[in-house]
Each structure stands twice: as C-alpha cells, then as structure tokens.
C-alpha cells in the first residue's frame, strides 16, 4: 500500500465538489458522442437522496436524465401490511417495534404514529438488536418486530432471530416484510412502455448480495448497470462509467463501489438469510402490484416466531388501494416525476403524506420536497 488511508478521506474524498465538477465535465464530453437521449434509473432511494441533495440532476447534459426507481422499502410497503402493524399494536400487552420512517406511513386505519397517540405501545429502534433488550425487559408483554427493508437489512433481522433462539426468548415475534431488488427491476423492464436505458445499482444491497445478482440485466435485458456508492462522487462517477459503456457499445455489470462490494457479497450474511427465510409466492408492492417471489417469509420450521401465523385470525389479507390522487406507483416505476403529481407539495407534504413516496426520507417525493426549496 502506498500510504495509510485516513477515515475522513472515506467521507470527504468522495464528496469533493471539484471532483464532482471534473466528472461532470467528462460526462459532458461523453454525452456529445451519444446517438440518442438516455434515461438512467437509480434503483435505490439512497441514490435519489444523494442526487437531489447535491443537485447532480442539475449538472447533467440535456440528453442524460436520472429516473427514480422503486428501491425505497418504506415506499413500497402496501397499506394492508401497515394495517397489520396497526392491528397488532392495538392488541393487549403487545409492544410493536420497527425501524425508520415506517412509523409515519398511513395505512387504512392510520399510521403507527396515530396508533401510538391512541395509547398503543409502538417503539422505534436504531438497531434490530435493541429489540432483544426490550423483550428481556418486558417478559409479560409480547414484543413484535415489524421487519422491513431490502437485502441490506434482511441479515440483521436474521441475526436477531438467531439471538432469540440462542437465548430462548419466548416473547418476541416477527412480522417479516423483507423484499428483494432484482424482481421489481425485472417487472419494470418487462413492461414494454418502460423508458429505462441503464441502471445505477444499489450500494448496500450489493454489499450483502454481491454484484452477481444483476448479471441478467446486462446479459438478458442488455442494460448497462453500475453498482455505485452513496457519496456524490460515487454517483457521478457511476454515471460516467455508464455513458462510457454506451459509447463503447458495451453492456456490462460494473462496480464503482469496489471498496465495499464484491461479486459474491457477504456470504456469511447470505447464509444467515438462507437459514431462516424462504421466498413468498407473491408480495404486493405499493403502487406496482403483485410481484412473484419478490419478498421473504420465515421458513415453516420457525413459524412459531411468525406473528402472521400466531395472530392469523386477526390479520386480514385483502388488498387495499392507495389514495386515488397519489401517483407513487408511476413514480416508483420511473414513469412519472414527483412534480407531475397534482397533490405534490399541496395536499401531500412530509407532515401530511397521502402517499408513501412523501413519507420516507428515501422517497422521491420527500427528496424533491426537501431539496427543491419547498421546506
């Protein structure tokens, strides 16, 4: 190694505005060689956030556009799943625990925040591991962990389950809503009206799964894909790599985020996932619809930990549609921009969201609202 790396370089080296500018210039040169306009979908909401925060969409040439994808776990959670959480939180002696912005998403009865206002014990944790402490401190209560997230957070839930079994904890159950990235990508591409020319692949999903999960998108669908880190230099460099692929008539999976992503991913985490989870036949994605094999559930041998089995009688299974003015579905499919929505920034704001894309900080609408000088 030529020299020692400093921790701060991992932040500031990948946020340097001059480097962003230098790549923007390289992108401009590449864009002149393009024979047509290109739309590049960033699958992950974390990238949408970076693009809006650093204004990367504003420094692109006219013939290169970002379109935002479905990779926001809070945004894609259908109302009926949130209703499950709401119903469970309302049960006597239940403590319902979840992560992130999930607490604010409206279901058909209200959000988990509303349930809490009505006296339900709903808690938000920083780490799934904190759930274990809450279960130990409340032996007379049933603790339900409402698990959400893509491949990134699935192994953390698996590690928690491992601890529950190891420590013989009897009062912690799971509501599993883990979803996977390649399946919705395939659905978007199978739609003949899609406008996607290439992908910026998720960062931390790929840390766990490895870049191998995207091979089909380059090979079968002929879409260039570059796995990118979350810093602004990562994203702009990935975009440059994609344009190079177009101009060199290549169609490959490349990894810009090679400091953390390998082809195989974190195999230890994958083993844990495999131990506890199997694919659901179907899962309904908010705004997108039913996608086969796109989500996980606990394996049958662990059904005693599965709140959907234990509380089966009180958890309804019917589909619940979104607010009729909300166009989150088209936004998640990359067919519409938040600004195309009639209620964006008016009836629908982060404090009073009608749709899920406005709730999560990774949602496209929330990012447009926050960084579009509307706050």
């Amino acid at each position, binding site marked *: *190694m*030529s*020299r020692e*790396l400093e*921790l*701060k*370089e*991992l*932040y500031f*080296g990948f946020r*340097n*505005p*001059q*480097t962003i*500018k*230098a*790549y923007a*210039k*390289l992108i401009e040169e590449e864009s002149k060689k393009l024979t047509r306009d290109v739309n590049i979908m960033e699958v*992950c*909401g*974390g990238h949408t956030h970076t693009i809006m925060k*650093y*204004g990367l969409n504003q420094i692109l040439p006219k013939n290169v556009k970002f379109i935002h994808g479905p990779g*926001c*776990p*809070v945004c894609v959670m259908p109302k009926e799943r949130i209703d499950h959480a709401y119903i469970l939180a309302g049960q006597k002696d239940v403590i319902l625990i979840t*992560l*992130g*912005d999930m607490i604010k998403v409206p279901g058909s009865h209200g959000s988990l925040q509303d349930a809490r206002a009505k006296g339900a014990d709903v808690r938000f944790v*920083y*780490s*799934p*591991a*904190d759930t274990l402490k809450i279960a130990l401190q409340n032996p007379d209560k049933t603790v339900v962990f409402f698990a*959400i*997230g893509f491949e*990134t*957070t699935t*192994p*953390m839930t698996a*590690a928690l389950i491992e*601890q529950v079994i190891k420590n013989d904890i009897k009062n912690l159950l799971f509501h599993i809503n883990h979803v996977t990235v390649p399946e919705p990508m395939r659905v978007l591409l199978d739609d003949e009206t899609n406008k996607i020319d290439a992908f910026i692949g*998720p*960062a*931390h*999903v790929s*840390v*766990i799964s490895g870049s191998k999960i995207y091979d089909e998108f380059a090979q079968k669908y002929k879409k260039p894909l570059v796995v990118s880190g*979350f810093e602004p*230099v990562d994203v702009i460099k990935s975009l440059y790599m994609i344009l190079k692929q177009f101009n060199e008539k290549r169609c490959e999976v490349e990894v810009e985020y*090679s*400091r*953390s992503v390998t082809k195989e991913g*974190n195999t*230890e*985490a994958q083993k*844990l996932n495999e131990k506890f989870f199997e694919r659901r036949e179907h899962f309904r994605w908010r705004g997108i619809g039913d996608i086969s094999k796109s989500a996980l559930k606990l394996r049958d041998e662990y059904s005693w930990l599965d709140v959907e089995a234990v509380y089966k009688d009180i958890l309804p299974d019917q589909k619940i549609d979104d607010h009729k003015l909300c166009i989150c579905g088209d936004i998640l499919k990359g067919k519409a921009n938040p600004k195309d929505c009639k209620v964006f920034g008016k009836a629908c704001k982060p404090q009073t969201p009608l749709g899920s894309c406005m709730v*999560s900080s*990774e949602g496209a609408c929330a990012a447009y609202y926050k960084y579009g000088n509307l706050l």
Partner: protein
Amino acid sequence: MCLSIPSRVTKIDKTTNTATVDTMGVSREASLDLMQEGSVKVGDYVLIHVGFIMNKIDKEDALLSLEAFDEILGRMDDDELQQSIIDSDKCFQ
C-alpha cells in the same frame, strides 16, 4: 434506511462478538454477527448499518479511487479549477 457509515475498528470483544468503532470521533459499538469469525481486526475500516458491521472497506481500493480523482482533477486546467472552486463555494456550504 440503507445508508451506512464508514468507521474504524478500535477494539474487539470476543465474548459479546461486538466491535468498538470510531465514526468520525464518535465511539460506538457494533455487532460482528454478520462477519466471519476473526475476519475483522483492530484498525480495519468497516461499514456499519443499523448497529451491525455489514462489511469491510478495502483500504487499498479506496486509495486507488482517491488517486484516480486526483489524476482527473490534475487534467482540469487552472481556469476550470478556479471556476469549480467558486461554484462549489456557492453550492456546497
């Protein structure tokens, strides 16, 4: 949800299978449950997500990227560099 923070490992506790890490001056604990036993060492850079170490950061690879950035910056002429500094002062405060 998916954001993760680069940190440096300062201590490892084998009994609890946790690491103490430095995240830009803040010390905190993270679980090693997702990492192969013995694969994380003091001084390693790691990615932390919701209280778990999700992977190591390859130092050499990061240095290579940073060197490549320097090289690209070196290719910009002085006027462009000057202009980008002025622009970045406006945009990135």
